[in-house]
């Protein structure tokens, strides 16, 4: 997070410098108002607006890499901040008549800032649509940052539960669910350590995402157990997808750190098929049951 802010240090320095110049100009060209003449309600209203704009700008810079959208958002918020800053300073300094620079700062920078911010938000919207294409298999209908997984870089099972609950009564929506696990992951974790295990989780997660359809969703339940939600899918298609995922993982060359030896992987997949009396939780439960059977058998099991 901090490293992203360091990318924008010049922008922040420039904005701080401009804010300082405005203060110096007001102090040099105007007279300080007596305390009794200060309208404290205006100070609070205009000052807090300027402060909020400054905080928004910092938060945006802390969360975005450099680029066109960031520049537009920075300029938009920066100009708005300067306009409100000058507005707040007005409450402390009385400028002589005929000093038009002050009203120009307020009247020109604010609409200019609003225009740049709007243009930046429009580009940000287009950027989000592109990112959305990449994230679709991880989030589908919901985005909730609290559900993002710290280990596997996909969402947690709460995302699956929310999607199931939301679309449960849409006819034919969720008929099948896959529950997957890597065979021997616990041994691998013990032998190679947590870092390598995390790497394996991330890489196999990416691999599974590549082998899923656009409408499917992959989440991590816990450890190496993943849930795949398959909308509008018949049991036969779910079976085919499950077999394809197994083959993809078997052909994947995961290489451990050190000697770089290939670690053979095998994926157990349980397929849960929805029944009339099912609820979202009971479908998930059936997925766990199917997976337990799969790991005791040949690695693939369908429970309906």
């Amino acid at each position, binding site marked *: 997070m901090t490293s992203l802010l360091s990318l924008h240090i010049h922008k922040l320095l420039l904005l701080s410098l401009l804010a300082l110049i405005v203060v110096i100009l007001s102090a040099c060209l105007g007279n300080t108002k007596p305390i009794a003449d200060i309208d404290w309600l205006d100070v609070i209203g205009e000052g807090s607006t300027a402060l909020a704009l400054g905080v928004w700008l910092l938060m945006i810079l802390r969360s975005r890499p450099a680029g066109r959208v960031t520049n537009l958002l920075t300029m938009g918020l920066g100009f708005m901040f300067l306009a409100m800053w000058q507005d707040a300073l007005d409450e402390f300094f009385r400028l002589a008549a005929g000093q038009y620079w002050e009203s120009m700062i307020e009247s020109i920078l604010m609409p200019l800032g609003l225009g740049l911010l709007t243009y930046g938000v429009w580009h940000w919207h287009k950027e989000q649509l592109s990112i959305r294409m990449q994230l679709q298999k991880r989030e589908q209908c919901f985005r909730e940052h609290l559900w*993002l*997984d*710290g*280990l596997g870089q996909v969402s*947690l*099972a*709460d995302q699956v539960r929310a999607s199931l609950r939301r679309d449960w009564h849409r006819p034919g929506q969720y008929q099948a669910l896959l529950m997957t696990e890597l065979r021997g992951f*616990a041994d691998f*974790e*013990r032998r190679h350590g*947590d*870092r390598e295990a*995390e790497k394996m989780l991330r890489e196999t997660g990416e691999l599974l995402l590549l082998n899923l359809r656009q409408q499917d969703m992959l989440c991590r*339940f*816990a*450890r190496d*157990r993943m849930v795949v939600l398959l909308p509008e899918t018949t049991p036969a298609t779910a079976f085919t997808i499950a077999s394809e995922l197994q083959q993809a993982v078997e052909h994947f060359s995961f290489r451990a750190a050190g000697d770089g030896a290939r670690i053979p992987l095998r994926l157990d997949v349980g397929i849960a098929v929805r029944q009339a009396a099912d609820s979202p939780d009971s479908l998930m439960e059936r997925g*766990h049951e199917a997976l337990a059977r799969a790991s005791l058998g040949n690695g693939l099991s369908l429970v309906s």
Partner: protein
Amino acid sequence: MTRHARHKWLSREDKYLSAGYPLAQLLDLIPADDVALHRVLRGSGIFPDDLMNPACLISVRQVHAVVRNMRALYERHETAQRWGNRLWPGYSGALSQALAASPDLGAFLKTLSLGRFFLCPGVSPVVRLNGDYCLLYWRHLSGSDRSVCDYLAAVFSTALMAVLRENCEGIADRVLCLVRSRERSLADPLRVYLGCPVVTGAAADALIFPRSLLNQPWKNGSRRLFESGLSQAVSRLNELPAATFPEAVAAFFDEQLPQSVSLQSVAGHFDLSPASVKRYLRGEGLGLQDLQDTARLRFSLESMLIDESSNEDIARTLGMGDGTNFRRAFRRWTGQYPGELRERLRGVTLPRTERSRSDHTGSELLPGALPEYGR
């Protein structure tokens, strides 16, 4: 009745734990791309250099402060389960040797109970034999907040199951895990890491397994190595007091069950004034009523789960009058009525047992410092 001398209790403020184990294992789970060690150590009084200093000793309260930070900062990294997965036998000298070479679960639990101050700091493993079942409770007696206690219960349950899986075949359907917490962030991972049925919101943190499992020989066990490790460990443990004051009081409550015990009785038992009993417990962050409630809750839970007793029966045994009083008390202890817990336990089957009763007895199982509480 044994009388206990004053000032022989271990306190949560006593610095006797090495900073290296088990704390360094937990800190190793901080993600590689995050250098937030100082944030994890914040408020604990431990500095990064202390972790490298073999002479530095830390207290249970400090360990729990780190655990609290770790949970808050890395909730979605399954640190409790991952820490537990590699926690035992660990790096605690002769104690770890005894754990690693335990010939069976009974011996393992005996070592765990003896070395609990080092192996599961701030939590007391309590073993009870009830009919065909053995119940292992994680009793929280450190005065830490709920989030730390829930986290530690998840750690130690995972740790024990990891050891069991390594030493026994087909263990998954022979253990039932009860989890007091209802949080999915703890319960979902537990289900996968433990591999056995997990009941959340179960009013206690416990593992239930057939009594016969205590004697079943372990694959990696060696009695000679175990006994050598244990005898060395005992000499090290003798340097510390045998128990904490809350442990001793909790054991006294358990002995007296199902009778309720007054403050005067506790004070008389320990040869202390009532004010001193309260003061000692307050120093550990606990109250006398908390301990009494915990003992009665544990009794009620077993009665419901294993003996399948009704509310009225339990109320009568505990001297609470009628079932309504018991329902109210149960709700105060757990936040739910007994019926809600029964509903939660519906469909959960206790692990299968062999009818042949084990010849394991309480005195064999646990050392004097932590008596066995079989009925």
